[in-house]
């Protein structure tokens, strides 16, 4: 998938984590066995099981010149494993109506599985095969490489993707975060089957694995899966250290390309997820450019001026850095006006902070909407994984809304005035022709 999509879904995932309380339905059981741990939410209302997993360490681990390695690996795990070649493996999945897929972002490698409860054992067997005995045969490897390169060509046509890539390259110079998760045409061409095998051997290890399981399954079944995975996977992997980096501030940049509408992507340094002020940042961001149809930027850019169809901002924490990232699409001839409004709102926030009413509204939205994240087993499983990746604790879901509630106007305005800085805002525009 495109970097932008990936980023957005990551963002949305993070917002969810940042979001709230909810439901007795989230009675989480910690299952620990064989050195592995899974979090389980049993729900027997529908005969469906959703499982999500993640290995810490993602595309930022790609060696220079082999960008896209993790992405290519993620596309290959279900393209043949064990004694099953690509078509045999896919046919097995389809016969059982099992949905299995893998994806990657800068910091982690993810897997998602959904199965009917009646096919649980076979579905888990296929998952284990994919993780521990991928074949990386030549035919599917060329096919996946071709598909990813086609995706790069399509992304090349899209102003927002182009702008976002340029922005990441600019604010993370000489750092893995500045390199494209999806790789480039040439870097994908440089990846060999041995690179993929090395990736799996070094990165898909038990010490890096977290799991979330939701649905029509018991603790004993999850424990059995953990025991089997513990046998299948290497205990420990090897990962090069990644340096922390503070996002750079760069001059406004234009990527000139033919487009009916220009994409404006902007970012400034943010806060990591473990920063004590991260929750306050979540609240402040909700007021500035958060989800829904009520944020300041939405009001100023869309409702008052009709400059764009959509505009948003979001905190974007990484393991080794953090951004506050935003994007909008606007007519080529009105880019200047749109960017000026964005900078003005940034300045207003930094100078004046929030009002009591804005703070209260944002908190009510963030706390009240948290239960909306708990309506499908797949989204709950993803949340269980995200919470473990960020080491927020098994009680996080029950604490989350009180963390939001505890944000005072002083907290919010400390973040607004100290963190937000129009002079640290990097802007990239793609379009213009």
């Amino acid at each position, binding site marked *: 998938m495109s970097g932008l999509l990936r980023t*957005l879904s990551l963002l949305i995932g993070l917002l969810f984590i940042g979001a709230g309380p909810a*439901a007795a*339905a989230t009675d989480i059981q910690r299952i620990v066995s064989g050195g592995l741990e899974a979090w389980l939410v049993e729900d027997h*209302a*529908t005969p*469906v099981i*959703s499982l999500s997993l993640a290995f810490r360490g993602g595309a930022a681990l790609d060696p220079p010149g082999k960008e896209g390695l993790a992405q290519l690996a993620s596309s290959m795990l279900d393209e043949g494993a064990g004694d099953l070649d690509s*078509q045999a493996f*896919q*046919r097995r999945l*389809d*016969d059982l*109506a099992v949905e299995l897929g893998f994806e990657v972002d800068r910091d982690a490698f993810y897997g998602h599985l959904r199965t009917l409860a009646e096919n649980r054992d076979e579905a888990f067997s296929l998952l284990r095969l994919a993780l521990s005995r991928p074949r990386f045969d030549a*035919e599917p490897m060329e*096919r996946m490489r*071709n598909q990813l390169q*086609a995706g790069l*060509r399509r992304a*090349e046509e*899209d*102003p927002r993707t*182009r702008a976002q890539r*340029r922005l990441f390259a600019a604010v993370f110079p000489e750092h893995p975060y500045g390199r494209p998760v999806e790789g480039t045409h040439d870097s994908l061409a440089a990846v060999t089957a041995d690179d993929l095998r090395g990736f799996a051997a070094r990165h898909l290890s038990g010490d890096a694995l977290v799991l979330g399981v939701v649905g029509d399954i018991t603790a004993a079944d999850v424990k059995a899966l953990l025991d089997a995975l513990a046998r299948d996977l290497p205990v420990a992997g090897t990962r090069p250290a990644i340096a922390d980096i503070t996002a750079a501030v760069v*001059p*406004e940049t*234009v*990527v*000139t*390309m*033919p*487009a*009916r*509408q220009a994409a404006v992507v902007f970012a400034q340094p943010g806060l990591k997820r473990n920063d004590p002020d991260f929750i306050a940042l979540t609240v402040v961001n909700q007021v500035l450019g958060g989800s*829904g*149809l*009520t944020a300041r930027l939405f009001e100023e850019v*869309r*409702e008052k001026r009709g*400059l764009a*169809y*959509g*505009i*948003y901002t979001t905190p974007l924490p990484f393991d080794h850095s953090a951004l506050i990232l935003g*994007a*909008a*699409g606007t*007519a080529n001839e009105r880019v*200047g006006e749109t*960017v000026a409004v964005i900078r003005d709102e940034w300045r207003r926030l930094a100078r004046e902070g929030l009002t009591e009413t804005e703070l209260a*509204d944002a908190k009510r*939205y963030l706390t*009240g*909407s*948290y*239960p*909306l994240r708990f*309506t*499908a087993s*797949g989204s709950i499983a993803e949340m269980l994984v995200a919470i473990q990746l960020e080491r927020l604790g098994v009680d996080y879901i029950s604490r989350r809304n009180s963390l939001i509630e505890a944000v005072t106007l002083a907290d919010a305005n400390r973040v607004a005035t100290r963190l937000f800085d129009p002079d640290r805002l990097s802007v990239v*525009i793609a379009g213009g022709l």
Partner: protein
Amino acid sequence: MTANSSHGAPVGLRAGYALMFAVALLWPLVRPPAAHAAVFSPETFTLANGLQVVVIPNRRAPVVSHMVWYKVGAADEPAGQSGLAHLLEHLMFKGTPTVPDGAFSQQVARNGGEDNAFTSYDYTAYFQNIAKDRLGLVMELEADRMRNLTLSDAQVAGEINVVLEERHQRVDNNPAALLGERTSALLFLNSPYRRPVIGWEHEVRGLTRSQVLAFYRHWYQPGNAIVVVAGDVSVDEVRPLAERIYGVIPAAVAAERPLIDEPSPLTARRLRLEDPRVAQPAWSRHYLAPSARSGDGRQVAALEVLAAVLGDGATSRLYRSLVVDGGPAVSAAAMYDPTLRGPSRFTISASPRPDVALSTIEAAVEAVVRSARDGDLAAEDIERAKRRLIAEAVYARDSLSHGAQALGEALSVGLPIAYVEEWPQAIAAVSRDEVIAAARAVLDDAHAVTALLPASGREDGERDQAARTTGAVQ
């Protein structure tokens, strides 16, 4: 506003012009089915003023999804006013005498809810996801704007700008979407489906406040609406709320919707978009097909199975023939969405590898289609496809929104609840002979539309290198 804010991706996709494409993508999740049980087990009742209410219990979280579906969409727009239904959808957030501009979404958000809306050919839908004890509040808000919308010329003019930016973002910035618009205009000779839901730009620019209000007053009334509530509620809880809040809206004269069908397609048609932005070429073929409303139910179910066998996933016929083992394409798929009032389409699409001509793709697809028409479809492949389709109905029950979406959509196009609830049995009953017969009836290359999106020939990254750094854009 409306809908669809910048990152409401799923909703945004569903909204609008990209209907065929979006529905196809979402379809596996949205669609019903399950073995021999009912799928969503909804309950329904109708108020004295004609408003139908559907309740789908789902107890996973203490929340509800509240949707209002109006049985009107882009297909019902007067000639020369394309985009009107969608513009109205945006303007529905602009206020009433008691809920001023912007207050609707603000009230929903202050109560911890999410709201948005989307427009298609046959329906326009509004929804709020919110804590179950706020159901009355969002019902009050929707009941109010069903009849009391007020608009100024300035609001309409401002929102036209927003819609044009939406159009630029979704369509004009995307050569494949531009070609898709033109393809629909060529495939449908008579059906209003030939016009884009978001509207042609020159017509959107000319839409007026009086046109919007006339359309609104004619179509937005209780007898032309369906309220769907999914979540942690029972019909016994919903009924008194609905009677008190929606029941007081006066009934109005029933709005008539003509059903406009296609003449038989006598010709093959081709179109080719040359656009300098295209880096990855694409090929697609579109066959006129029956919808669940317009066609025979068995044939429609057979076409759904046919689409899965031919073009859904890595084991599908098209993927195996065109993509696997050094085939000419990087992707290949088939799509068919029967949930429409008027005619539907069956689409096959593929993207070539870099060194492959579109004509090579076309020949390869035609060979697959020919073999399907000749009956060369393995029973095993058909059974696998049916199993997957039926499993999707179980997966759909796992989510709050899919039931509300599937039932709202079906009822809006005039299908009964039983269509959704019995969908798995309909799929299970499809025979191999019926699939082959459906292929012969619909996959007629002599009467299809073929859309070509060739690459522009420029080198990847060429323009990127020409990018400059400047501080002058402000």
